[in-house]
């Protein structure tokens, strides 16, 4: 059973996924079988997802990512923490992100 992520977790792109930025959009391309629910899939991120993705550098904790985003979006980090945690949890479950 997968461990639940906390805001202290540090996440990075799995080595089994290639992230490409094409036409300003982040496209995630699985390299191995078993990522995602179906075969023949790519992943794209919405605007919020892309902003979070670009901050996930494998060094910052999720809490620090939220703080960093708060500076960009000029809002309280506490409101962004749920978004960051939800995003990281979803992509970790799919095998796109790994918690270090």
């Amino acid at each position, binding site marked *: 059973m997968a461990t639940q992520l906390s805001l202290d977790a540090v996440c990075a792109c799995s080595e089994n996924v*290639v*992230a*490409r930025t*094409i*036409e300003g*959009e982040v*496209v*995630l*391309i699985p*390299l*191995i*079988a078993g990522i*995602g*629910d*179906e*075969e*023949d*899939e*790519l*992943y*794209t*991120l*919405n605007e*919020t*997802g892309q902003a*979070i993705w670009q901050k996930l550098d494998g060094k910052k904790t999720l809490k620090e990512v939220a703080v960093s985003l708060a500076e960009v979006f000029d809002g309280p980090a506490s409101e962004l923490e749920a*978004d960051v945690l*939800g*995003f990281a949890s*979803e*992509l970790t479950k*799919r095998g*796109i992100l790994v918690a270090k």
Partner: protein
Amino acid sequence: MSKSHSIEIKEFPLWERLKAKSVPLSFDMEITARCNCNCRHCYINLPVGDRDAQARELSLAEIGDIAQQAVNLGAMWCLITGGEPLLRPDFAEIYTGLRRKGLLVSVFTNATLINEDHIALFKKHPPRDIEITVYGVTRETYERITRRPGTFDKFMRGMNLLLESGVRIRLKAMAIQSNLAEQDAIADFCRAYTKDFYRFDPQLHLRFDGNRECNKDIIAERLTPEQIIALEQADKERMRAMQKNCDTLIKDEFAHFGCDHLFHCGAGNGSFNVSYDGMFRLCSSLWAPPTLYDLRRGKLDDAWNHFVPKVRDMRSTRQEFLKTCRVCPLVNLCLWCPAHAHLETGEMDGATPYFCAVAKLRATTLRKTE
């Protein structure tokens, strides 16, 4: 609301935007011109032991470098083809190297060399698909074409290994004199495994290397126009598609009337090919010397952004061509194109009577059945 979206590749919304921006969305890498088969109709099969051809093959590093340049230009798809690509001992490294660059990779193979290592590779790193040509469904027919004893059993073994492993394969066929009597059985065989895909190609073009003896074999294997039409009429799905698109296939008022440009096809629009020795081409069949760009001497960015527009701007002054093929309303039913004209005649604006005869009979048949 979820911040990530999984999207089926065919529905990827970026495709249209990328096409509109003249990005080289896909490319073919012919990683060898050598093949373990010696098919009668083939346009590229050099012998396995051809040392000169082997010495000229792009290295793993060169392939990786060209692929990276393609990725930098926005490429998403790569087809690994040959010759027989599995002949390369470094096939697995080439394949995974392309995948790791974020390319969606397909492979064309005759399947006769597939082994357990390939299966493990494809299961771990799934290809977009693997396309296999079915030359025949009996040993006699298959090996009459490949001219290599034992290849039918190897093909069946390889295909079954792929099927059992769940790797996505697609089967296709060539229709030639040597397997004409078996076409129905070949179609049934292919459709049994790949219902959504099966296609057959009933027209042969000549060899890329211009080998005269091999070209004689190809010409001897060509179906007559009547045989081609009979096959197409027997394939109800194909005929329905042709009838449905009749208006676009036959253009009485051809849009390019009065134009002297050679290229009105899709060559160099969104895709390109790289030969085993590093020659950039606008399409797989285009081998006319003025249309080749050596990637061992230059960069892909230069080839794509500067060389392609020059090639596509090439024009003809041959009146015979400008008054016939250039303005022919049947061009979409015809295998004529500058590339095939060059292979047939040595000139990109040469006439190709065989393709012309097929196109005319196709048009007559379509008009009758409208």
